[in-house]
């Protein structure tokens, strides 16, 4: 039986003005029809850091993540404000396509296009008006290097992306996202379909990528959160219960629900 915890008792950190932030949500609520799935989400994400969102299944962490780049449009109703570079991107008039180019996303299951490795990366670039061959080639190389995939595929760029292993496919998806030169990268349990060795490779890639991008990653693997993230937010049944630097969160959780989750009492 799951214990009842008070949603009044939360420990969510805030940052002072000196901390540069990549984005921030204010009073975000998410509804699936009449089902209130996420309550009052107030989180701020420091620039060039990895923030992990942890919590049990159904805690609302993926729902939260998908709302950040408006991928929940047409699926759920999202209210509240999402601040990105001083703009509330949760307004109806905002160009969502533009937003998604700045806030990239990698999904749980690797979903490369059924095209060649090169086409996977250049397709969206071309659709956004980059036509020059050398510029495209440069972006392909840079993004594949960024995703630590270049050495494995550089001789086979015209091979089908579907012939790659699961881990390679996931790194290709990361490469595809960073080729758009985003500024925030959202990852929704990117390693849950991967084996341990591929997971290590993806984690190393992310640690490298945080120098250039702000990364927000959903994971239900607590070891993964502690290995790679600097900040960590704990979600419970649609509420953000605790948000703290990762070290503090795992060594000294502030409230009972986090303590129980981290010690493995549920989830």
């Amino acid at each position, binding site marked *: 039986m799951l214990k009842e915890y008070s949603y009044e008792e939360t420990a969510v950190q805030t940052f002072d003005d000196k901390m540069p932030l990549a984005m921030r949500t204010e009073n975000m609520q998410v509804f699936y029809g009449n089902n209130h799935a996420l309550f009052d989400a107030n989180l701020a994400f420091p620039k060039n850091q990895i923030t992990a969102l942890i919590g049990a299944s159904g805690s609302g962490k993926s729902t939260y993540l998908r709302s950040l780049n408006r991928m929940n449009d047409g699926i759920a109703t999202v209210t509240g404000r999402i601040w990105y570079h001083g703009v509330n991107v949760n307004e109806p008039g905002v160009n969502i*396509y533009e937003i*998604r180019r700045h806030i*990239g996303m990698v*999904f749980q299951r690797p*979903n490369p*296009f*059924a095209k060649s490795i090169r086409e996977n990366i250049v397709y969206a670039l071309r*659709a956004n008006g980059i036509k020059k061959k050398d510029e495209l080639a440069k972006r392909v190389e840079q993004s594949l290097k960024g995703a630590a995939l270049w050495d494995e595929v550089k001789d086979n760029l015209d091979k*089908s992306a579907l012939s790659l292993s699961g881990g390679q496919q996931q790194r290709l998806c990361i490469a595809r996202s960073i080729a*758009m030169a985003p500024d925030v990268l959202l990852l929704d349990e990117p390693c849950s379909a991967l084996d341990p060795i591929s997971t290590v490779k993806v984690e190393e890639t992310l640690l490298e990528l945080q120098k250039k991008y702000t990364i927000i990653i959903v994971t239900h693997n607590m070891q993964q959160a502690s290995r790679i993230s600097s900040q960590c937010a704990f979600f419970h049944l649609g509420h953000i219960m605790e948000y703290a630097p990762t070290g503090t969160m795992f060594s000294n959780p502030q409230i009972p629900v986090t303590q129980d989750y981290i010690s493995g009492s549920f989830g």
Partner: protein
Amino acid sequence: MNAKRMDLIATIVIDLIVASVVGILFFLLAYILSAGLPHVSWSFLTGATDAFSGAGGIGVQLFNSFYLLVLTMLISVPISLGAGIYLAEYAKDNWRTSLIRSAIEVLSSLPSVVVGLFGFLLFVVKFKIGFSVISGAIALTFFNLPLLTRNIEESLSAVSRSQREAGLSLGLSKWKTELGIILPVALPGIVTGIVLSAGRVFGEAAALIYTAGQSAPVTNFADWNPMDPASPLNPFRPAETLAVHIWKVNTEGLASNAAALSAAASAVLIIAVLLFNLGARLLGSYLYRRVTASK
């Protein structure tokens, strides 16, 4: 009875059922081909028909069948592509969509002879187009649209949702995602469906008797101006197709060798339809390898 024995009996019964289905098909094919092929010759395939008795070659009819098929596909593929994309991607799940779906279902269950009569009354009589290739092509479009639309919708829906999310997450518009990412993946299935429906259209007779007509005026194959009355490409000339020809030779043919003529024409028709089926498979797998870059 123990489980193992039960399993064995079930397997044998299922095998027998499959064998009988395959057997019937092979028997039919062997019968039609052996009855017809001996009478097929180059002059039969290319020669002209005697308008009075129905004797002679099937050159014009063979051409008419292909021409009608091309025209039908030119009209029906774009329409059903649009309808299929709409139903698979844009239609909301409401009463209007289910109305559209039932309309398509009703259209697909209309007997082809009724479609033919409708075409006759509307195009041939009311619009005064007369028995013509174009009347036939429009009638066949009615007959073809529902299946083609359904096929395209299913091929598109079979593409994983995660592909759409990938496109949208890169800032591509829904339409661009549809056109550049979903459609290529669905293309092999769509093309297979188009070629298979081409086989059906090629063999259709009932819908054409009253629309494309039952006469195959001798055309001048040196004249490719579609505006000329004698040109084979003129869409306003009557055009008896191969399937209609078989029906006509059998019912009102006056030629002394009517039975042999229709058997030979049937063999040609069957071979053409088989080629469409084979072509559908080859083209489908070729396209799949092309678009997915898996060589």
